[in-house]
């Protein structure tokens, strides 16, 4: 009881919490303004613009930026997404299976492919023809890119589906079974459709992640008509010894990813209201 903490005495010389907050906020503004002034004064704006935003170099990117690079990015992403959607659902069902070995296989797959850098998977895919003589991934570079994205994406999508499947109340299966549906029929007709509806928002985020990861196709050693945004920007940047094409590619990514991000959070909000 003897020593009360000093702050317990109100109205003394120490600053009140509200005053303290005011001082803290003022300091934050001062630091921010100082940092901005430093950047404006010391950055070489002319050189930056010259290297990252040169209009005539940017113009060189057209029209191939859209007709080849963005188109290919979308092909790799959509292909990888479809692959990961199907394999992910299969893995999630295995993960929740009554048959123990299926559960193990799914767990091992998910842990490995979530634990490894996606880049490593792509590098391994380039060595597949060496490991398996006579084997070629169908559809050439498209096939390789889609395979890499699909294998990695499936591990994440499996966890998304697992959460969705587990969120469907047990009473749904019971109602379906009590109507005489088999276990499989109940899953297909009642549980999976509800699970897919529930995971639309996180799946949209998965799509965005795949879109960004499609830049790893760069490491497959693609060229010509197979290049996607990142490779396209990088090649053009080397050609002109100027970073502008990379910036252009970046903006193109954002044009797609930011609306999709908004869409995902809107869908999330709508789901919340319907509950």
């Amino acid at each position, binding site marked *: 009881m003897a020593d009360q903490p000093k702050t317990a005495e109100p109205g003394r010389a120490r600053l009140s919490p509200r005053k303290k907050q005011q001082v803290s906020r003022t300091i934050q503004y001062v630091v921010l303004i100082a940092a901005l002034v430093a950047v404006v004064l010391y950055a070489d704006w002319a050189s930056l613009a010259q290297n990252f935003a040169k209009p005539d170099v940017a113009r060189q990117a057209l029209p191939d930026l859209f007709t080849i690079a963005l188109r290919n990015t979308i092909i790799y992403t959509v292909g990888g997404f479809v692959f990961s959607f199907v394999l992910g659902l299969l893995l999630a069902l295995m993960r929740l299976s009554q048959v123990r070995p299926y559960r193990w296989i799914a767990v091992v797959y998910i842990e490995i492919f979530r634990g490894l850098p996606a880049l490593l998977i792509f590098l391994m895919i380039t060595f597949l023809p060496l490991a398996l003589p006579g084997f070629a991934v169908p559809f050439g570079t498209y096939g390789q890119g889609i395979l890499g994205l699909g294998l990695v994406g499936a591990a994440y999508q499996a966890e998304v589906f697992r959460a969705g499947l587990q969120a469907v*109340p047990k*009473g*749904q299966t*019971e*109602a*379906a*079974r*009590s*109507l*005489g*549906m*088999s276990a499989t*029929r109940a899953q297909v*007709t*009642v549980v999976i*459709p*509800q699970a897919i*509806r529930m995971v639309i928002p996180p799946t949209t985020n998965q799509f965005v992640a795949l879109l960004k990861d499609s830049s790893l196709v760069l490491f497959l050693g693609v060229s010509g008509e197979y290049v996607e945004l990142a490779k396209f920007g990088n090649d053009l940047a080397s050609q002109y010894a100027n970073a502008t094409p990379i910036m252009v590619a970046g903006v193109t990514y954002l044009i797609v990813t930011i609306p999709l991000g908004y869409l995902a959070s809107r869908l999330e909000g709508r789901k919340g209201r*319907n509950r």
Partner: protein
Amino acid sequence: MTVHAIELRDLHKYFGKNEVLKGIDMTVEQGQVVCVIGPSGSGKSTLLRCVNLLEAPTRGKVFVEGVEVTDPDVDIDAVRRRIGMVFQQFNLFPHMTALQNVMIAQQRVLKRSKREAEVVARDNLDKVGVGAKCDSLPGQLSGGQQQRVAIARALAMNPSLMLFDEPTSALDPELVGDVLTVMRKLAEEGMTMLVVTHEMGFARQVADRVVFMDGGVIVEDGAPAQVIGDPRHERTRAFLHRVLHPEE
């Protein structure tokens, strides 16, 4: 000799080490309405769920219309087709309209054509008084309407008996009556019904027999006037007193 609609022989059910049913022997005859009452945790819902094997009994036998459903060789899906079940939480399929809810099992299980399933579905939805709500999703219906759609869904399969698991316990008080009216009508049509309920008025007026369960055993089994009106066992008396005079 006619077969019993339901016969339970020495039924035991454990959840882990917890014995929920401690040797139940009971029969329900064709066309009978049997209400099971008892305090929560007495095992009455578990008993009901053992009839269509939503819970697998640990020991003992269950016969439905003479077929042993606890026999591992029996086609349980075929048995369940003939047993309608209504749940406390309705368990309608939320991604389907009321009409689709009533059609889906007819189409997928009974292999009825879409047209036939729709005719049967509309008939049954009309019968339970929600014919106007065919195109509504379950989320747009009141609890009482949802439960009646659930009853129509079960009836559309032409079951020979119906199980009701506390069908009115999740409803707002003013909606209970609609559901009970539908159940009363079913009983009058001669449907065999096994009903777990807390509605003493319904049990007294509609049931042919009332079964009182406590602690995993059947304590009393007889006519409603006797079990509810003049209970022989102290446990039954104490339970009924608590239910009928909750504020004392």
